[in-house]
Structures are given as C-alpha cells and as structure tokens.
C-alpha cells in the first residue's frame, strides 16, 4: 500500500495505561473525569513518556453572539434599518479540552449547544471572545490559511463538491486549491478511490449521486491533501444502513491505520459506539462530560430500550426486569437495565413469555442522555 501522502507515522495512542492523572494543577482548569489518557501523563514533570503536543488544545474558550431583535410592525422594520437592539447569547461558555494525536473523539450535544461554534473556532472561521485555542500548534483565527491547509472538514448535509461537475474534476480542482504536489495527489487520490470504491462514480456529475455515494466522495475530497485533523459533521445523516457501515468502517481505518485525528459530531449514538474512544458532551455552551461512552452511560443511565412487535396485539405484557413505557398496537416499548438483566437474557426471558414477531434493543437517543446529564448538573447546583 502506498502511503507517501500520509505524512505522519502510524501509531496508536496508549489508552491502555490505567492511571488517572489530575492535570488541574497545571492548567488551573476543573478536573474532568475521563480515561487515563496520555495527555494526563504528559503533565508529569519528566515529560518523557509522551512528548507529542496535543493536536487541539482549548482552554476557557468563550464565544458570544449578538442576536438582533426585531421589533414588530412597519415602524419597527423601518427603525430596524437604522438602529438595532441586540441581545447577547453565550454560545460557548468557557470550555476546555485537549485532543491528542490519533484520537477519535465524539463531540455531541443538542442543537444549539455550541457544537458548531466550537468547530468553527477550531477551524479558524470564527474568532472567539476569549480563551486559548491551538490547532496543530497554531492559533487558527490568526493563521487561518496555514491551519486549514492541514484540516479536512466534511459536512453531512452539504457537499463540498461541484454540483454539476464529474467527481474526478472536483478532485482535480481541490488539488489546485490545496496546492498538493502532483505525485502526492495522484497516489492519495488513487488510494482513496480504491478504499472507498469510487471508481464507477468518477465520471458522474455530483448531482446524480445518491446520498451514500456522495458522502463517500465527500470523504475522499476532504482527505486529498492528507490533513492531520479531520472534522466530521453528521457524516451518516440520512444514509441507508449499508452506507452508514461503509462510512464508519472507513473512518475507523483512517484513524487506526493512518493515525488521522478525528473529531466527530453526530446525533447517532451508534456512530459514537462504533467509532469513538472518547466522548465530549456539550450543553448550553459548557462541557458536561468528557470520557468514554461507557462512562457517560454509567453517569447518566444504564437503561436500554427494548422494542417488541407482538403476535397478539391484545396480549398483556408481563416481563420481570422490564418496564412498559409505551404501546402502539402490536408494538410495545420497554425499558430495562442491562446491569441487572443482561440484554441476551432479557430477550430470551421475553421470548419465553410472549409470542414475538420481531424485536430489537436500542440505546436511548442522545437527546435523552444529554437531557438527563443536564438535569443532574442543575440538580447539583443550588
């Protein structure tokens, strides 16, 4: 396999070390629960264990927006032409975190929580009010061009390809934009084409691609310049199951085999489960949780959703360990705690008691987890 363009050596971040190191004394930040991660160890005076600087460093980042208030009526509209009233909204309210080379971090939170503001600051689009931010050693808003040259960004809902051009021409254009040397470009392109199976799509205008095909092409497009850091914004939104798996598989390989650092925002908890070793939860502009998915679940809820389609719509459902939370004809929604009853046992327990057409187990949606996290946070504070 050629790897001339993947500049950085492949490596795995040493998550295996089982020591929690409190770094509050070095940064003055609040102690955050989390995995025993290399950056914690790096804070040791010796500094020998892990000399690599973090890919992203964010400290006490604040970003406020001025929202124009509209006044009602014709007079209001007229007055609004000349003078506006503004209301300040804190989109990001003093967040801090580090991301090490080779991490694959899920960044989740409800709409309007400050996710996209953070990503925009990290990628140099937005200038924050205060706080420290380094991306690949640079201040992104001061050195926008140098920063974004090493960044790949994929938006699930917006393509970066040229709508009416064949995919391959979009790739060529991106080569010119990112000033990628020809040989490096060609090997990266051919490799991505092989990995993502794009060969049959190259001559098709982007507007004729299906969503899944387009997403694969977008992923390739964002990697042609061999970025060291990749932002993925809802990369699986609207995709069918097969495409979702293909995207996840590719992202995983990219991270594991190339060591590309990935920050992933998503509403799909399955994405996180499949990919991320670490999850950052943001709500109302603050980091609510920084740790593994299991830790997050453990902090909030251990419950799973069990959805069953019964043979007999009128049957009385009775299954110890599970609580019925909703019912809609043949379909019954239940909750159970896998710590008390493991999922396989719950399923067999249910099937032994009721005639079942179909059944599946799901995680509670992100919104619910975050909402609970919020409730806990606000309950803790007076």
């Amino acid at each position, binding site marked *: 396999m050629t790897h001339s363009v993947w500049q950085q050596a492949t490596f795995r971040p040493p998550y295996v070390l089982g020591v929690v190191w409190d770094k509050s004394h070095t940064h003055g930040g609040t102690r955050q629960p989390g995995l025993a991660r290399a950056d914690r160890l790096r804070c040791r005076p010796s500094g020998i264990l892990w000399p690599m600087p973090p890919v992203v460093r964010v400290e006490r980042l604040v970003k406020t927006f001025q929202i124009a208030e509209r006044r009602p009526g*014709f007079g209001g*509209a*007229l007055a*609004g*032409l000349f003078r506006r009233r503004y209301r300040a909204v804190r989109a990001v309210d003093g967040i801090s975190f580090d991301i090490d080379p080779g991490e694959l971090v899920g960044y989740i939170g409800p709409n309007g929580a400050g996710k996209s503001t953070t990503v925009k600051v990290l990628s140099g689009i937005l200038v924050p009010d205060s706080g420290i931010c380094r991306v690949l050693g640079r201040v992104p808003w001061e050195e926008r061009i140098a920063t974004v040259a090493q960044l790949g960004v994929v938006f699930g809902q917006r393509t970066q390809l040229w709508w009416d051009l064949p995919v391959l021409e979009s790739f060529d254009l991106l080569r010119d934009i990112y000033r990628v040397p020809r040989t490096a470009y060609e090997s990266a392109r051919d490799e991505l084409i092989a990995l993502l199976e794009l060969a049959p799509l190259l001559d098709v205008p982007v507007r004729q691609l299906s969503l899944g095909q387009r997403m694969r092409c977008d992923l390739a497009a964002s990697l042609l310049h061999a970025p060291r850091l990749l932002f993925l914004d809802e990369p699986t939104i609207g995709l069918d199951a097969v495409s979702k798996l293909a995207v996840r598989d590719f992202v995983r390989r990219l991270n594991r085999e190339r060591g590309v650092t990935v920050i992933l925002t998503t509403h799909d908890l399955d994405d996180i489960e499949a990919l991320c070793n670490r999850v950052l939860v943001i709500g109302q502009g603050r980091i609510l949780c920084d740790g593994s998915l299991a830790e997050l679940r453990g902090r909030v809820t251990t419950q799973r959703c069990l959805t069953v389609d019964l043979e007999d719509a009128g049957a009385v459902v009775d299954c110890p360990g599970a609580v019925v939370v909703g019912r809609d004809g043949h379909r019954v929604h239940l909750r159970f705690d896998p710590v008390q009853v493991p999922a396989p046992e719950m399923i067999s327990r249910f099937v032994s008691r009721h005639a079942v057409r179909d059944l599946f187990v799901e995680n509670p949606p992100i919104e619910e987890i975050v909402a609970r996290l919020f409730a806990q946070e606000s309950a803790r504070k007076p």
Partner: protein
Amino acid sequence: MKPYLAVVAARFRVHVQYRAAALAGAGTQLFWGLIRVMIFEAFYRSSTAVQPISMAQVASYVWLSQATFAMLPDHVEAEIRDTIRDGNVASELLRPVDIYWVWYCRCLSFTLIPTLMRCFPILLLAGLFFGLKPPPSAAAAAAAGAALLGAMLLSSAITALVSIGLLWTISGEGIARLSFAAAYLFSGMMLPLPLFPDWLRAIAVALPYHGVIDVPFRLYLGHIPPSAAPAALAAQAGWIVALVLAGRLLLKRGLTRLVVQGG
C-alpha cells in the same frame, strides 16, 4: 370566487413581510427615474424641432412608468414555474378549481401587490420634487384610472400566458425571453411610444404590450384625449379577452399533452 381571492390574500400576507425590500425597490426606481429624466432633458435641449410630446409630459410619463415598474410583464410567475419544474402540475389538477383562474390570480397578485407597495412613495416624491404633474382634467384622471385597472388585468394575462408556455420546457423559455424583451421595448417603459420612429411605433401598436404602460399614461397626460378613451379602453379589453382565451386554450393543450405523455 373564494379560492381565487384566497390566492391573492395569501400572496399579500407574504409580500407585506418584505416591506423593507419594497422601500429599497422604490429607492431604485427613483434613482432610475432621475437618470432618465436628465437624459430626456438633455435631448430636448439639444433640438429645436417640435416633438410629438412635450418635455413636461415626458417627465410625468417617466415617473408614472417608474412607479408602476412592477406591473411590467417581464417575468414568469415563480410558483407556476416551480410547479412545472418539479412536475407537480398533476397535483394542481386534483383541486376542485379552475386551474387557469388560480394561475391567473397568482399572476395578478404577483403584479398587483408589489406595484401597490412601491408606487405611492415614488409618486409622492416625484410629485413633490421631480416634476410629476397631476392629470389635466377629471375626465383624463377617470380614463387613466380605468386603463390602469385594465393594464393590471392585461399584464396578468400576458404573464399567465407566458408562464403556461413553460409547459413546453425549452421553447417556452425562449418565447418567455422574447416576450420580456418585447415588453420592455413596446410597452413604452424604455422610451415613450410617441418618440418612436413611425415604423417601430406601428409594430408597438399592433402588440398588446403598449396597453400596460403607454395607454394608461397617455390617457393620464391627456395625450390621448378623453374623447378617444372609449376606443383605447375597448382595444385594451379586447386584448385581455383574447389573451385569456389564448391562455386557457394553451393550458388545455399543455395538460392534455402532459396526460398523454405521462409527464
């Protein structure tokens, strides 16, 4: 009547939200009016020959046409265009209304409401500062009022016809563009018809577009005397009837074609 009025009312509510845009649009028309009046003044000062229309009349003509700029049939109706483009015409057929009149009402509101929202500030400022004169007689005012109403109906009939033409995709686009260009030239919007060379004026008079700008405003100026108003209004009405009938016929053919081809 009710569904048709509802079409107009809905459009009115949409447009009222864009008051600031309407105000800016009025500003644009004022600026253009100023440029045009200055150019006409310079031409009139450069020649001693007697012209078929006086400079004062031209100034009023220009301001009136700037104020009613939105009335010019130089567009296809956006909703109809989108319906056709997205292939949703069939769903329009499911409604228990006469599709031509629904479309006509859309065209009417698309013309009427922006005109009403823009014309008053222009007329006011032009009347106060820039040489727009009131009509010379009550008869001229009445005739102009009737002709303006007719102009509105006529403009909508043209827009409806051109929009229906989009059912024939490519040729419809082409004809629409020709019609827009003709509307600019032959309505009198760019140059009052009395200043045209005779042969070009003959073409303009043979086309329906002059009923939108030239007829109402020359009635306003008394340039068409009130005594000739009935004939002018009858010609305008004739065009409205003819274009509505043509539109209905075209729509029927277009829909049949659509059903046959399964578009």
